[in-house]
């Protein structure tokens, strides 16, 4: 329960702190720098998490069932393409990355095996996972605040999730990370799919509210004039 609470709190408060800091800083065109900085931090933290887990084992030989692989690992690769590829492919990755932002949190809520390790007594790897969830949520909010996410992004996000599901099936079967593809695994996948739509819905609502707010500001400006 404490883990779940920590995960949710960190995931919510990390973006809040960064966005409030950005508002207080009052410097324009800082979005891109923030996104690049956070993406590099995310990559570094994912690598660090891997090495931390490796350091728990004798000779850094990780047993196959304990290799720290989950949706967040795939997100790391997608994040790099989304942030550093400015072409058409980059746009596709941006959409898929932003809309699948709740998926690592959902997998962590449903299956604690994605972030826990029996040797992680000081909870270093766990803390890194929670922080990563917060960081990628911040990156996606920043991307969504400056890029238009089209309805097609839902499809790309779903494709990304299907790719992950296929990879996870292979990993479960060949690495023996879990017993088998269980009912819980299926439910988690379905909830993940639903979360894509939910994030898109929130994005549309935020866009609508933002437009309304802008129109209101313009109207009040006209009245004053």
């Amino acid at each position, binding site marked *: 329960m404490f883990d779940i609470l920590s995960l949710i709190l960190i995931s919510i408060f990390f973006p809040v702190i960064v966005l409030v800091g950005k508002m207080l800083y009052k410097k324009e065109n800082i979005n891109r720098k923030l996104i690049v900085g956070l993406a590099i931090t995310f990559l570094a933290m994912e690598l660090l998490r891997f*090495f931390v887990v*490796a*350091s728990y084992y*004798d*000779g*850094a*030989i*990780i*047993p*196959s069932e304990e*290799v720290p692989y989950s949706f967040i690992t795939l997100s790391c690769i997608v994040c790099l393409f989304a942030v550093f590829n400015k072409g058409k492919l980059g746009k596709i990755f941006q959409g898929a990355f932003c809309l699948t932002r709740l998926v690592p949190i959902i997998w962590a809520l449903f299956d604690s095996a994605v972030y826990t390790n029996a040797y992680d007594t000081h909870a270093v790897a766990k803390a890194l996972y929670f922080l990563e969830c917060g960081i990628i949520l911040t990156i996606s909010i920043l991307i969504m605040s400056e890029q238009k996410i089209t309805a097609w992004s839902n499809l790309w996000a779903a494709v990304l999730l299907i790719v992950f599901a296929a990879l996870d099936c*292979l*990993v479960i079967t*060949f*690495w*023996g990370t879990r017993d088998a593809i269980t009912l819980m695994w299926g439910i988690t996948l379905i909830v993940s799919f639903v979360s894509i739509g939910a994030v898109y819905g929130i994005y549309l609502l935020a866009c609508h509210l933002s437009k309304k707010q802008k129109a209101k500001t313009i109207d009040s400006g006209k009245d004053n004039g």
Partner: protein
Amino acid sequence: MVLNYIVPLVVTLVLVALFVTLCTIFLKNASEEKKLIPIKVVFFLLVALEFCKIFYLIATNGRYEPSRYPIVFCSMVMFAYPLFCFKKNRFSEVAKSFSIIPAFVIFALFVGIQWQFNMSLIQGHSYLYHGAMLAVAIYLLTSKLYKFEFKKCFPLFIVLSGYILLSTVLSLFIGGDISYFGPNSSYLGFIYNNFGYVVGNCFVVILFFVLCVAVYGIIALCQRKKKKADSQTEVQNV
């Protein structure tokens, strides 16, 4: 010995020669952007091979060893390609330098001990993987995408030394060997076992310095001599 070592080695060298010849001839008058296409293809091939190797080894061995992490010296060359293939930046020239001399060293080190092992799927993969890196290194030279200049050897040396330092720190942090220069390495492990990490690292760094300076220095001297001879011929013709 013949089937396990000579045949795969010859096949690899033939494939490398074919790749280099065909790419160089067909892209002789092409723009730099087009000349980089084969390297992009090789980059994606190497990434795919790396993923397949990791997945296969974990599945068959039931464990993931540090010598198989994608940050060992052999894999580092692969990470240099995107730095000059997709978008030019201030690291592009160093990345190109890193794709040449280290690729030759890696291939030589790889070939040097392969006679001990029997041919297997993972061995075939290794020949293809290292051969692809060698092919890119030679192609960079034959397509004139890279020009040897003596001043380029220093950034390369700094990058190589940085890698040695980083891999040592990581090895100590995780308690395993991620580099081929570690204690259990079949190459330079004896130095570490006899003299320890510090001396071992210093030795490797000095070795790299000598190698970089020697290769770039010899090529610079040859280029200077060639220029001199050309100018003398021109004077005689006049």
